[in-house]
């Protein structure tokens, strides 16, 4: 039995889909069988970031409605055998989802995979509620800015009240990923630091990802940044994926200003 992890954020544009793609691939790189499912029905783009957009034949809604079987709809990643992908429908909207169908689909996926990663839609409407309803854990992606934190806080509040696990008297584990950190801005006090964010949201920290211009290019090319060994964001995602797989990895302080030789040199003349 695999575990179902919902990747949520509340606010849009914080890097939820990018995180889902990279973490899914990262888990697969750790040798675990992983499937990423795009729950953003009507606005799918996880397929593009994974570089699988031409391969989508059947989508999740067709599987739920019995128009296609699950093996037909699952797409294997070109990069790693262990990673599969289930696309969202681009033609329907989120009203087609209902609890029974989602539950059945997730049960099937749980049997086939070790990790089921759900990419939640932005916002807190029914599409979001269906994503978190049967999740065992949630990864909350935030940017170090107040609007993202508040929306995430709201999303966690809904998670704590609508999740099936909570209704059964258990707790949904919640982990925080802080995305797009610009160390220099944190140093200057222009960006919230992770201690403040953790204080507000009061959940466990899973990892910090620095801002990286390479992410956009990587998404455009359909090659997740985690494949780029040199990228700081890619390294951060790799560490987070390893943590998800249950291995402890030290957490480098990426908020500290990077100090290279040249930096030190110029710093001397300031």
């Amino acid at each position, binding site marked *: 039995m695999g575990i179902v992890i919902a990747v949520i954020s509340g606010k849009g544009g914080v890097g939820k889909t990018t995180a889902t793609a990279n973490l899914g691939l990262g888990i697969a790189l750790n040798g675990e069988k992983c499937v990423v499912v795009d729950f953003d029905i009507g606005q799918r783009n996880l397929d593009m970031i994974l570089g699988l957009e031409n391969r989508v034949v059947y989508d999740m809604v067709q599987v739920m409605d019995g128009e296609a079987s699950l093996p037909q709809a699952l797409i294997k990643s070109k990069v790693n055998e262990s990673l599969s992908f289930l696309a969202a429908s681009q033609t329907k909207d989120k009203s087609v989802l209902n609890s029974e169908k989602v539950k059945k689909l997730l049960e099937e996926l749980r049997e086939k995979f070790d990790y089921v990663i759900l990419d939640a839609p932005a916002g*807190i409407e029914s599409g979001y509620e269906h994503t978190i309803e049967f999740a065992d854990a949630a990864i909350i992606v935030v940017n170090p800015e107040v609007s993202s934190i*508040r929306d995430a*806080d*709201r999303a*966690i*509040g*809904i998670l704590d009240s609508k999740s099936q696990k909570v209704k059964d008297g258990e707790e949904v584990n919640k982990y925080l990923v802080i995305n797009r950190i610009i160390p220099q801005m944190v140093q200057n006090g222009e960006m919230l630091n992770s201690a403040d964010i953790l204080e*507000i949201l009061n959940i466990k920290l899973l990892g910090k990802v620095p801002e990286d211009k390479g992410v956009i290019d990587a998404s455009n090319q359909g090659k997740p940044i985690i494949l780029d060994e040199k990228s700081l964001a890619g390294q951060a995602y790799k560490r987070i994926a390893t943590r998800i797989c249950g291995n402890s990895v030290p957490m480098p302080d990426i908020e500290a200003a990077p100090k290279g030789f040249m930096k030190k040199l110029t710093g001397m003349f300031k």
Partner: protein
Amino acid sequence: MKGKQYSVKVYDTSVEDEEKFISFFEANFPLFKDHLIVIHGELSDKVRDYLTRKPLTFVQDVDIPKARSQKEVEMDLETQKSAQIEHQKRIEEQFAKLSSRLENNLRVIDNMIRSGQELNIEGDLLLLGRVNSGATINISGNLIVTHVIEGLVKGYGNFMMVSNSPKATILFHDREVDSSALVSKLNKIEIIDDEIVITQVLKGE
């Protein structure tokens, strides 16, 4: 000292025309023989002689305490009584308030209140978690929050006790509390003489 207390009937008058005055008392002597006659103003020897001879008890230019009419007395009693009842009521009310506050099952919540969550509490509350930006608490009684408040709190009790929360929006009896003054470890908010008063209970940040 010994003394006796009794009521007398007083006829309060003045002499305008001596002839008329004497003839009036002559005619009504049986009526006035037990009265005390109080005369204001001039009193001629003739009249004085007449009154002494008759005899009629009289005094001149004396202020006699005026008895109030029955109606006035009743009204006075009434207002006194209602004031007493009012007072009693107020005391009882205050007492009821206090006792209900004390007994009104103090609730203790050991969770944080997240954005979008709304707590509606009848009675008192001890909150041990944060109140995040975008969260709302409505409370009819007293409130003590030991963690930071960044959301909205509306309280209607006797007091509120909040920690260092300069970002909070706090309404106490529908009046906005200047949260920039909530800077010490624990601050008490109450209304004294119709003004919101913030006192530092625990100093330090």
